[in-house]
């Protein structure tokens, strides 16, 4: 097996011929050897472009790409020792699963016995022995997915690239394949670069992730860190479901006071805030608690309850109007499934000081030193 290496991008930009905006904007990434690295972002943010640059299907307009220590910026895909699982799997339709998986080895004239040995090995890891003689047309989505994985695995490449490999599967299968991918990654110990627009997928699978928006890197780090300390309100709202609530407030008399509302929240102890400073407060739905009336908190009226089994999500509107909300028109919070609030109930919400994330009005993280 080839030695496991990482990928480094240095100042990679990409402007497509004919495109007037940059698909990627000076991206610096450090993907460690053996990492399960997710590239996460909304549609059109440049995830696929980034992956294709790593693969060598596109050349960067500026910047360099390294695989391990090797500068591969000018190398063709063939010379990079990578394998890719395509979003549509890209299985050769006229070949059986076995032929699909071994095509690369046959191209490189690997001895027949060796091919047979590796095929058997890969097929047994993936549990697809019974499918080997079938053509892709006769396979289900999940089975095709496995064959595509097998085709990538059999070569024992240095890097695995995957472009939304699970997005064509139904929910149940997707969860199952998630577990499988995780298991495979651990078993093989290879470096995986995984593109997805599904934050839950990225959160559960990756050891590290990067969030992209409009071709610009927003944040990079382990999922729990990105979740806990989002770099800006875009990351804050993109990661976590349902999204973080964002409230407008300003500092008055050492307390955070809502716009238009007059309700106040306790200030986080470690934040050095200036009197009169305007802020955005981010608070996750599960951090909002229903306080007792008159204790001071955000007064809201229940509009809707979503039952999700173990939890309920309660959607409510601020009594004092929506001026205190930032780019959203309702507040969501989480309760136990047994707790039910009839529509129209008036509640007061509060949160522990350390559950609050502070951002500047322009959306950058504030609770670092000013």
């Amino acid at each position, binding site marked *: 097996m080839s030695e496991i290496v990482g990928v480094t991008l240095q100042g990679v930009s990409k402007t497509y011929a004919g495109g007037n905006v940059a698909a990627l904007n000076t991206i610096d990434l450090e993907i460690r050897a053996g990492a399960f690295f997710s590239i996460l972002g909304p549609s059109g943010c440049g995830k696929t472009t980034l992956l294709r640059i790593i*693969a060598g*299907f596109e050349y960067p307009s500026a910047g360099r790409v390294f695989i391990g220590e090797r500068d591969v910026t000018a190398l*063709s*895909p*063939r010379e990079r020792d*990578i*394998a*890719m699982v*395509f*979003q*549509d799997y*890209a*299985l*050769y*339709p*006229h070949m059986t699963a076995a032929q699909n998986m071994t*095509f*690369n080895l046959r*191209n*490189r004239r690997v001895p027949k016995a060796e091919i047979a040995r590796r095929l058997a090995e890969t097929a047994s890891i993936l549990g697809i022995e019974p499918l080997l003689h079938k053509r*892709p*047309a006769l396979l289900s989505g999940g089975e095709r997915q496995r064959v595509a994985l097998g*085709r990538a695995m059999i070569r024992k490449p240095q890097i695995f690239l995957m472009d939304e490999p699970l997005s064509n599967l139904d929910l149940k299968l997707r969860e199952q394949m998630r577990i499988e991918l995780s298991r495979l990654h651990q078993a093989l110990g290879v470096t995986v670069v995984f593109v997805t627009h599904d934050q839950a997928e990225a959160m559960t699978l990756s050891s590290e992730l990067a969030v992209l928006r409009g071709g610009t890197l927003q944040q990079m780090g382990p999922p729990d860190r990105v979740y806990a300390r989002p770099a800006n309100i875009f990351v804050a709202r993109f990661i976590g479901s349902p999204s973080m609530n964002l409230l407008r407030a300003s500092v008055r008399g050492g307390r955070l006071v809502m716009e238009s509302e007059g309700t106040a929240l306790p200030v986080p102890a470690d934040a050095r805030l200036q009197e009169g400073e305007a802020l955005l407060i981010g608070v996750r739905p599960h951090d909002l608690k229903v306080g007792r009336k008159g204790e001071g908190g955000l007064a809201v009226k229940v509009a809707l309850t979503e039952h999700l089994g173990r939890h309920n999500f309660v959607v409510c509107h601020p009594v004092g109007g929506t001026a205190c909300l930032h780019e959203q028109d309702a507040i969501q919070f989480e309760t136990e499934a047994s707790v039910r609030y009839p529509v129209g109930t008036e509640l007061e919400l509060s949160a522990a000081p350390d559950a609050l994330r502070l951002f500047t009005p322009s959306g950058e993280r504030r609770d670092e030193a000013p």
Partner: protein
Amino acid sequence: MRLRRRRATELAAVGSGQSRVYRGERLAPALMLAPSVVILLALVIGPFVFLIDTALHRQNLFQTTPPRYVGADNFYYLFISTKFQVALVRMLVFAVTALAAEFVLGFVLAAWVHRLRDLPGMAIVRTLLTTPILVAPIVAAVMWRFMYQPDFGVINYILGLVGIPKPGWLSDPDIALFAIIAIDVWQWTPFVFLIVLAGMYAIPRSLYEAAKLDGTSPWRQITHLTIPWFKRVLVIVLLLRLIDLLRAFEVIVATTQGGPGDASYTLPVLVWETAFVNFQMGDAAAASLVLLVIVTIVITLLIRAISRQGVVGQGRR
């Protein structure tokens, strides 16, 4: 009014489960179809019957004697004539050579244009490459006859500049047939090119990219990916071209009329000459029936061979 009432009773009968429909009612659909069937028979079967009938008679349009029934004589004399045997061979040489050239060239051109598809100006190249199809065959033939002209034709002019001996393209018996094949290749390669190119565009880009990652050489890409992908389309193009090539005659008649000697004398030319130069309608009809049978046999055999391979009707995805 009466019609409407009858229709109403019929509907009522159907509705109540009774099936007492008048015979006239049952005949109505057949009667309505009858005119089209008659026209169809007259247009398709009619000429065919007439052709067979003609083939069984001796008839020369220059003589006033009425057609005389001769049974299979016309076929007999056709089969034993050396002209027929020569024509058969020439026809096959013409068809097979042109077919091979058109396929190889069409494929290479399509692969080339497809590979360079992202370069600017490729759309213009594509259009230019397809224009020969738009030229009427007879115009193409006349045009090429001028270009082939030994003394002032453009081809020999260029050869003269380079200092290569100038052949008499259409007058040299060793060259004539191939010079005509070149015209057909010029005109119909674009057809193959266009369809193959369309097939290549239909292949998802990711398949080629997967092949690239799999370290597939450009040649193996064609043999292991492109060709299997649209085998069926290729087969249909092959059939269409073959039928056309076996029947080709305007281009020959407009250039050499089968000559020099019998160098380009194919079966369709034989039919044309017998009918419209010698006016022996019986012999011409017999020859054209033989041509029809040959084309039919070739096509049937090909389709058989292909469907046995499982190309026809095989799901692609």
